[in-house]
Structure formats: structure tokens, C-alpha cells
């Protein structure tokens, strides 16, 4: 494809070379000079821009022995654009916190340039390094090259997905646990589930070091693990005094005191007083007065379950399964592994195909789910107890999984004693 043709060939996309924000079109047009597939990719996109029709058809391509991690695409325009007839994406597990040495990044670049189209997406929404543009043959070459350098492939289908976590202790003072380390430990421990589709459907972990949830775990992962603390918020009185002096009391009342969701923080005689038993660890006061206030020292995580987006039943967010547990020692990690194992077992046995764990919980009921995975009901798992009297007491009906009662109710169809009647 000649320079000439490429230029005139994508007039619509060319519009995206304008403007101050860095242009992927400009970048890829340059790349197209050495990678013809990229030129044809832009041509196909140009046609989509004209017709508002998409030209990719999806299918499944497994890296042998891994079961997933490749998103395979065939072009509907493959006859016209043979270079993109097959144009797959490899999902590569990223380092915790998206931390890199330049050496590592350059390694990825080399592999991408050699075995693929030379396009990287840093990073996919799940967190992976996305390597776009290999065909049925080069996908395996790229995979092999990656693995030889110690990289590993991410998940797809009914499998665990690549984990993601916030920067945590690497530079953030809010962090209440070691997000980077736990992410790596979980990945390595469950790596087989990441590669082989053994679950009813996809399962994502995301880890945030504190309730600010910079990893978006609560709405974008099946198991959000979020740092928190259980003792008192630490207060630096001098810094409080400085803050109050600088901003004034009214500012503090209107921006800190009144914003506390449980009204448990007070400004009394220019000092901050917190009723820690009522504090829900929302982070607001700490965020605003971050030099004066800090999370407590008794730290750990809250574990939730069931976040996902819209498909089928509308968005769900993760909801509390373990209100608080420490996550520091080897035993803590074992407890976490064990919990995950129990959840996958129960969901695995009773979940339907394509049923995310949040959908499953909703179908069988939270209480039944807790019983199934061996967790004690805790009022912190719910906003509030039920508002309706429709309780299925088990003496008579048995717990239900998938709509079937375990125990036949002994009272059904029992005859009343005849009553005296006029």
C-alpha cells in the first residue's frame, strides 16, 4: 500500500489527527509505514466510520495448554484487507500496580513488533497489557516469546481474569494493605484457573488499598478486596490546628463536618473529635485533611462479592462478604485462598453457564449463598434487614438452591381440625 493511497484512504480518520490531545491515528499511521496490517486496520476503521457498521467477527482461539487469553477476530472485509483477515489480541498479565522498568516495556515492544502488529494498549480495562494484531500463526509465536521472557497470558471465557490493583504502598500514604503483593500472590496461587475455563463464567479480582477504591473494584470486579482499618482515625493535632487556622471554622464545618455520612466527626473548641464507633471509614475527612488525619493502625481488608456491569440483569456492585479481616501474614493469605476456593466450589457446582457470581447470589439468595460457602451472616453484609415478612423458615421449607426446596414441607395439604360453626 503506497503512502499516497493511505493518506487519501482515510479522510474521516484523518480528522482525528487534529486537536491537542495525542492522536492514536497519527501514531498508527506512522506505524503503518512499517506495518502494513496497521494500514489496513485503519482502512477497515475508515469504512466503519463511513457506514457506522462494525466489521469484526469474534471467535475463540486458545493458546494450547492455556485455554484462554486470546481474543480472536476475523475481519468481514478480509478479502479486501487480507492483512487484518485475522487480527487477534493477546492479553498479557501486567505487573502489580502497572509498575514497569523500561527494560521490561522494551521487551514487550520487541515482541509486539516482531510477532504482532506493533500496537500495544496500556492497559485494557481489566488491567491487562493488550497486544493487538497477531494472526492464527503469529499469536502462538508471540505467546511463546512472551513466556520465554517470563510473562504470562491473561484470562478469557469462563475463567479467572487478570487481577488489577491500585498503586498502594508503593507511593500512597492511604494504603491499608499491600495491594501489590496480594495481587501477585492471588495471581500465582490461582494461575491455573486463569488459564483454564473451569468456572461458570468470568471472575475478576480488583484490589484497592483503601476505601477510595482507585482500582474501581467495587463496580468492576467480582471480588473487590479493599483496604480499611478498625481502630481510631489518627489525628495530628498540630496539623488540625494549622488547617483550621488556614481555612477557618466555617470552612471546616461546611466541607468536613457536614459531609460526614454518619455525623460522627465534630469540631469542638477548634479541635477535631471523632466518634470512631460510628465512623464508616468513608475516607472523606482524611482525604480533605490528609496531613492532619490518617487511617488507624489496625489494618486489613473488607472483601466484597458480585460486581459487574449491565449485561442481563443490570449493573450490580460488589457487596460485603467479609466485613474485616487482616491480610498480612501467611495464615491470612491462606484464609483468603480458602475462602475463594469455597466460593468457587459452591458457585461452580450450582451456577449456571454464563452466570456471574453476583447473578448467582441474587438468584439463590444471599443467606443461602452464605450457608453454601460457610460464612456466618453479619448485619454489615446488608444495608438493613428485610422490610417484608416473607420469610421461608427452614423447619418447614428447607433452604433453596436453584428454585428447588431441599425438604418437602410437612404441613402442606394438612387438613384443618373441623371447627364449630353456625
Amino acid at each position, binding site marked *: 500500500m503506497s503512502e499516497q493511497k493511505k493518506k487519501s484512504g482515510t479522510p474521516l480518520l484523518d480528522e482525528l489527527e487534529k486537536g491537542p490531545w495525542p492522536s492514536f491515528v497519527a501514531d498508527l499511521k506512522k506505524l503503518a509505514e512499517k506495518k502494513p496490517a496497521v494500514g489496513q486496520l485503519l482502512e477497515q476503521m475508515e469504512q466503519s466510520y463511513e457506514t457506522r457498521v462494525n466489521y469484526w467477527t469474534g471467535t475463540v482461539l486458545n493458546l494450547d495448554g492455556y485455554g484462554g487469553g486470546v481474543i480472536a477476530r476475523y475481519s468481514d472485509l478480509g478479502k479486501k484487507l487480507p492483512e487484518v483477515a485475522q487480527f487477534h489480541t493477546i492479553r498479557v498479565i501486567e505487573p502489580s500496580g502497572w509498575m514497569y522498568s523500561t527494560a521490561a516495556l522494551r521487551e514487550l515492544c520487541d515482541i509486539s513488533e516482531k510477532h504482532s502488529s506493533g500496537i500495544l494498549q496500556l492497559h485494557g480495562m481489566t488491567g491487562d497489557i493488550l497486544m493487538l494484531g497477531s494472526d492464527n500463526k503469529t499469536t502462538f509465536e508471540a505467546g511463546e516469546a512472551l513466556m520465554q521472557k517470563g510473562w504470562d497470558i491473561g484470562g478469557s471465557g469462563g475463567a479467572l481474569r487478570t487481577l488489577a490493583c491500585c498503586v498502594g504502598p508503593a507511593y500512597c500514604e492511604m494504603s491499608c494493605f499491600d495491594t501489590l503483593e496480594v495481587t501477585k500472590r492471588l495471581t500465582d496461587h490461582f494461575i491455573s484457573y486463569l488459564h483454564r475455563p473451569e468456572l461458570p463464567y468470568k471472575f475478576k479480582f480488583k484490589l484497592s488499598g483503601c476505601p477510595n477504591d482507585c482500582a474501581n473494584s467495587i463496580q468492576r470486579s467480582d471480588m473487590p478486596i479493599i483496604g480499611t482499618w478498625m481502630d481510631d482515625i489518627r489525628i495530628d493535632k498540630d496539623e488540625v490546628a494549622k488547617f483550621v487556622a488556614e481555612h477557618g471554622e466555617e470552612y471546616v464545618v461546611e466541607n468536613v463536618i457536614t459531609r460526614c455520612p454518619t455525623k460522627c466527626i465534630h469540631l469542638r473548641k477548634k479541635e477535631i473529635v471523632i466518634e470512631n464507633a460510628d465512623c464508616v471509614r468513608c475516607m472523606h475527612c482524611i482525604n480533605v485533611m490528609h496531613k492532619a488525619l490518617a487511617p488507624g493502625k489496625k489494618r486489613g481488608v*473488607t472483601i466484597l462479592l458480585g460486581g459487574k456491569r449491565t449485561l442481563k440483569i443490570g449493573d450490580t456492585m460488589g457487596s460485603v462478604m467479609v466485613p474485616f479481616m487482616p491480610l498480612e501474614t501467611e495464615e491470612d493469605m491462606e484464609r483468603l485462598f480458602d475462602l475463594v476456593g469455597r466460593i468457587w466450589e459452591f458457585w461452580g457446582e450450582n451456577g449456571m453457564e454464563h452466570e456471574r457470581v453476583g447473578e448467582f447470589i441474587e438468584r439463590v439468595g444471599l443467606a443461602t449463598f452464605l450457608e453454601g460457602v460457610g460464612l456466618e451472616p453479619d*448485619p454489615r453484609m446488608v444495608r438493613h434487614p428485610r422490610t417484608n415478612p416473607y*420469610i421461608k423458615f427452614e423447619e418447614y421449607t428447607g433452604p433453596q438452591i436453584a428454585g428447588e426446596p431441599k425438604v418437602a414441607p410437612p404441613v*402442606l395439604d394438612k*387438613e*384443618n381440625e373441623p371447627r364449630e360453626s353456625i
Partner: protein
Amino acid sequence: MAAIEQKKMAPRDQGAPNYKEYLHPLMVKNYGKWKYHEKVKPGVIKRVAEGGDVLWVVRAGSPRTLSVDKVRGICQIADKFCKGFLRFTSRANVEFFVDRLEDVEPLVREVRDKLGFPIGGTGNGVTNIVHTQGWMHCNLPGTDALGAVKALMDELYDEFTNERLPARVKISLSCCSINCGGQADIAVNLQHHHPPKINHNNMQICELPKVVAICPVAAIRPATVGSKNSLEVVEEKCMYCGACHGQCPSMEIRDPDTDTLSLWVGGKSANTRGGPSFMKLALWGLPNNPPRWPEVGAAVKTLLRAYKDSAKEYERMGEWIDRIGWKRFFDLTGFPFTKYHIDTYRFARTTFNTSTQVKP
């Protein structure tokens, strides 16, 4: 059913009585022109009009179910002190209107001595319990609202005559889970433990389609039992709402052996602060124990004690719990949190805690 004897009367659509004839003269004069009120003491509120007129309103607790002689006794007092006018509140208390301060105490004394009614029910205390028919009149009750309320008000008497709680506490008590008594800070309600039992012998065939139609979860289907047309209940679908029982007495949802009483907390009608809210299950499994239901009294008092100790001023029951969290609520009251407290009905997901907002 016995044939019903009827007497032919002409239809008359007379409408509501004319309340204007029943207003105290000071109300007529200052209608819509009241300026402020002041608490004199529990049960006595002073109302001041823009023009300066003053009306004292004295509130007395009533058992609601009254003999005509008791009502006449009330009238006597109103004639003596209130120019012959009085009212009842939305919670069945009686209110006497006094336009001279010096009449307040004598009136209070007569109400106490002659009627035996306590003065109170205002401000931040427990006011009269609203309740339902129970075994006195309804066809559906599993317990007696009247007796249970009497027994409970005996226990809470001092909270009626005082204003020493963090906020107003409204209690309701209902004799089946239909709950004609409504949402309240504390509600006592009958709880069924299983689906309706069907009395196939009594089943009135004519009503079958209606009964089938009324079930909100389509749990009822026609069946042949013995040689008779009857119904059956698909157990795993039924959620014990009792709608079928209201429609057909042979769908018996009550069970004297297994029915229990439940305590619900945090219902609120007022649009104050967070607005109206539904009440939530606090405790189930209280024995339905006439004639004095001591377990109910004990539980309500436990609850009120925790509330009194830990709530802030102006925090209604539900708001207090929202602040301290349900975990501490269960810790403070000693009520067990069980799996049955977790919602299983159609909006269950919306009750999940989808945040890390938890307390120790």
C-alpha cells in the same frame, strides 16, 4: 352463610359531618392563624395565636375501644372545662381544649380520676399504640391486638407520661401480617412460619378462580383432592403473604402452634431529614403468649433502653440505627442477627451493602 335480612332504605349520600360545628370557639377565631406552641409539661401543650389568644391542649391516653358510658364520661369533662369541644388524635388519644390556664390542673385531675386515663403522649415519649381488631372482631387475626396493647402500655406507662426519650416513639401492633396497624418506629406483628394449609373439605369451589388469581407469585393451582376439586400450593413459590387467606378462609395461613410475633423497627412517615422509611425486621420468634405477652413487653423494653442510652436528640429509632449501624444495634439489644433477617424478596439486592462502609 346465613341469609341476610335487609330493610329497604333510600340511598342517601350525606357526606362528611360538618367539622365546623365541632370547633372550639378559639379555633374558629384563630383558624390557620396559630403562631407557635410551647410544651408546658408532658401531655399539655400551650398554643399561641398570632393575635395573642392562648389555647391549652391536654392529651390523654385512651384504650380506643370504649363503652358508651366511658365516652359519656369524656363528654362530661369536656362540657365542664372545654365548652363542650374535644377531639381525638390520629393515634386515638383524646385531646381536651382549655382556654384558661387555671382550668388545666383540675381537668388533668378529673381525667385521671374519673376516666382513669393518663396524661401524656406528647413530645419525645412513647405515645399511644395504634392497633387493630384482634380476636374482638377481625376474621383473620392470629393474636389479640387489644390485649397485647393493653399489656404493653402497662409496661410503657411511664414513657407515655414522660418525655425522656431521644425523639418521638410511635408503636403499632397488628394481629396478622397484613398489618392494618402500619409502619412505626416499633411494630409488633404476627409472623407465619409456613405456607397456607388447605382445608379441602371447606373449600368453596365458586371462589377457586379468584383465589388462584390473587396469588402474587402464582403459587396456587387447581388440584383434585380425593374426588373433589380443590387447590394446592406450590410450596417453593409461596412466600406466605396470606393474600389467599383473605380471599378464602379455607386457605388457612394461621397456625396457633407455629405462629410467632416479630418486632419491626425504624418505620417512619414523617418527611423529616432522610424522609419516610420502611420498618425492618429486628426480632422474630417471640411467643404469641396471651393474656399478657410478657416476652413482647420485655423485648420492647430492651429495645427502648438501648435507644434511650445511645441515640442522640432528634434521632428517630431508624435514624439512630442508621447511625450506629445494624451490627451495633444487634449487639446493644442482644437480639440475634439470623439468616432470616437477610431479605429474599424481590428487591433483596437493593438491601445488600455495596460499599466498604462498615463499623467495628
